[in-house]
């Protein structure tokens, strides 16, 4: 039983994804691009990624009866400080996970 609707959605999502990736790369170098588009694009990465991060860090997997996940917030702050100093992708991942595991095993609550 093939989920045609699901495959259709995935192909559309793939086309949109390829479109945004290819946009400026395949455009001729002298093509005119509206100024507001370039101006807003500058902030897209700085906005979308924090919007993805915030709920995952703040609320996800929170202890029963709590609405904030204190361990994740602390571990994310530790990882942020490390990332700001080193810019290391793998180091940030390792430090953040280690901080969370330490807090979960030896933390006060």
């Amino acid at each position: 039983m093939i989920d045609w609707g699901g495959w259709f959605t995935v192909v559309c999502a793939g086309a949109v994804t390829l479109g945004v990736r290819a946009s400026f790369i395949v455009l001729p170098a002298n093509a005119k691009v509206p100024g507001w588009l370039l101006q807003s694009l500058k902030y897209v990465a700085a906005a979308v990624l924090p919007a993805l991060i915030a709920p995952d860090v703040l609320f996800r997997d929170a202890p029963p009866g709590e609405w904030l996940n204190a361990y994740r917030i602390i571990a994310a702050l530790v990882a942020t400080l490390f990332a700001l100093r080193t810019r290391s992708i793998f180091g940030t991942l390792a430090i953040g996970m280690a901080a969370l595991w330490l807090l979960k095993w030896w933390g006060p609550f």
Partner: protein
Amino acid sequence: MKTNRTAFIAGFRDQAPGILGNVPFGLIAGAAASAAGVDPWLALGMSVIMFAGAAQLAAISLMAQHAPAGIIVLTVLIVNLRMMMYSAAMAPYFRHTPAARKWLFSYLLTDHAFALITTKFDKQRPPQRLDAYYFGATSTMWCIWQASMALGIFAGAQVPASWSLDFAIPLVFLSLVLPAIQTRNHWAAAIAAATAAAFCASLPLRLGLIAGAIAGVIVGMFMERLAAAPGDPAKGRA
């Protein structure tokens, strides 16, 4: 980078920390797909067709909620819109690349590849054999990503939830976004986006993500206008 072969290997070597960091991300995205009840072949097909982890995760969680196709495609567009900025930044490096290869390289473009190329090389004077270098960085990323997705889809549900492996996802995003936050305007955009997304986190269909993204871009542009407007009384206080 004397030959295409050495350039390819150098690209892979320089991208290796990002590739390694994406393995838990792929495992989790795959496990999330099977946990959400998405057909394994559809999840794997999505990974091959889209090759965009953050958007795949968002699409999977929406599919699990039986969201309308339009909402799924719109969310994927918003999550991936940052790639348009990467595309603009990468275009000068591929000016002399053949057209068909431009499409292939676009398909392979990731946050990691953008960060690697734009910090390592000068766009005015891209090095010899950049194409082989880029292909070395991105094609290996592609293979490892698909392998970890497949492993996640077919075996990832075995990892105990108490390991909190899903925390790797915000950590990867964190390490990708911090270098992109360069000015006070960017900080304002990031904080506004995170705050709006947090306040709207309980909205259905992950609309909080869209709300956060829009709030962040508007605040960033507003801050820029504010700083640029001469004689604006608000400027002195900002």
